């Protein structure tokens, strides 16, 4: 009896889909420019503080693309060469309204690091 409960739980864990980011509380909240500045100042320290953490970013949209399953939103950082790059999975989300270019938006997502842009995945619009 205990064994089957154990297997059931293991099966659940193994097949668990991604946690819904909207249900997770953000550990840090940033203005897009400040997030970029933090990374520019010290990438290693910023990685240590932010990678794998769910964070919130406020900013204006510089670019927006979407197809059937994914969307990508870039936020202005003040530096023309760099953005906050936010990747969205559309399948898992309830009706999602994506912001337009130039619009102000607050996005929550998991930070994966820095590569010309600060990258966030599993994003949701707040």
């Amino acid at each position, binding site marked *: 009896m205990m064994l089957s409960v154990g297997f059931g739980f293991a099966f659940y864990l193994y097949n668990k889909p991604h*946690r819904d980011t909207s249900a997770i509380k953000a550990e840090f909240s940033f203005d897009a420019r400040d997030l970029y500045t933090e990374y520019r100042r010290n990438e290693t320290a910023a990685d240590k503080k932010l990678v794998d953490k769910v964070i919130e970013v406020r900013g204006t949209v510089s670019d927006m693309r979407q197809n059937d399953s994914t969307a990508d939103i870039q936020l202005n950082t003040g530096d023309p060469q760099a953005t906050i790059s936010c990747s969205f999975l559309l399948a898992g989300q309830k009706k999602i309204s994506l912001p337009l270019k130039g619009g102000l938006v607050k996005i929550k997502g998991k930070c994966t690091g820095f*590569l010309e842009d600060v990258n966030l995945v*599993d994003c949701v619009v707040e």
Partner: protein
Amino acid sequence: MKKSIITLVFALSGMISYGQLYLTRSGFIGFYSKTSVEDIKAENNQVYAVVDIGAKNLAFTTLVKGFIFPKELMQEHFNENYMESDKYPKASFSGTFTGDIDLKKDGVYPVMVKGRLSLHNATQDVAIPATLEVKAGRILGQSQFNIKPEDYHIDIPSLVRDKIAKELTVSVKVDCSPK
């Protein structure tokens, strides 16, 4: 290598500009494995790609943590056990292509890409057929090829080896705009 390959390419392009540089920061790379036991799918939509049509160079780079798996546990294993992403956060490719592209003529051009693919602190020379499409002032790149995890020192424990195909299929799709 502290600086990414893209930074190097940007720096180079700053010095010698042929005006034929195309780039994207939301390119797609997916890898797939099918066995009788398990199907694996991982997709990354935050790939940086730069294509220099004049010099016939290209470079790709991405964060390993940007590969999203439908199952969270699999993604954790991938990052913690197989790719050791905290130690080696980036995957990259840098190389050249052969084949002629006519930027004035929309169309699909088959090319042969040769270069060095680096992941998990291991580098391999690869030769991959691909297509570059000229479309409305942009360059679309597409390719599909196989890789073996063992070639990149990725150790898969024997207990789970049957769950992962001997070779993984990698699919690349980028839509690059002029710089």
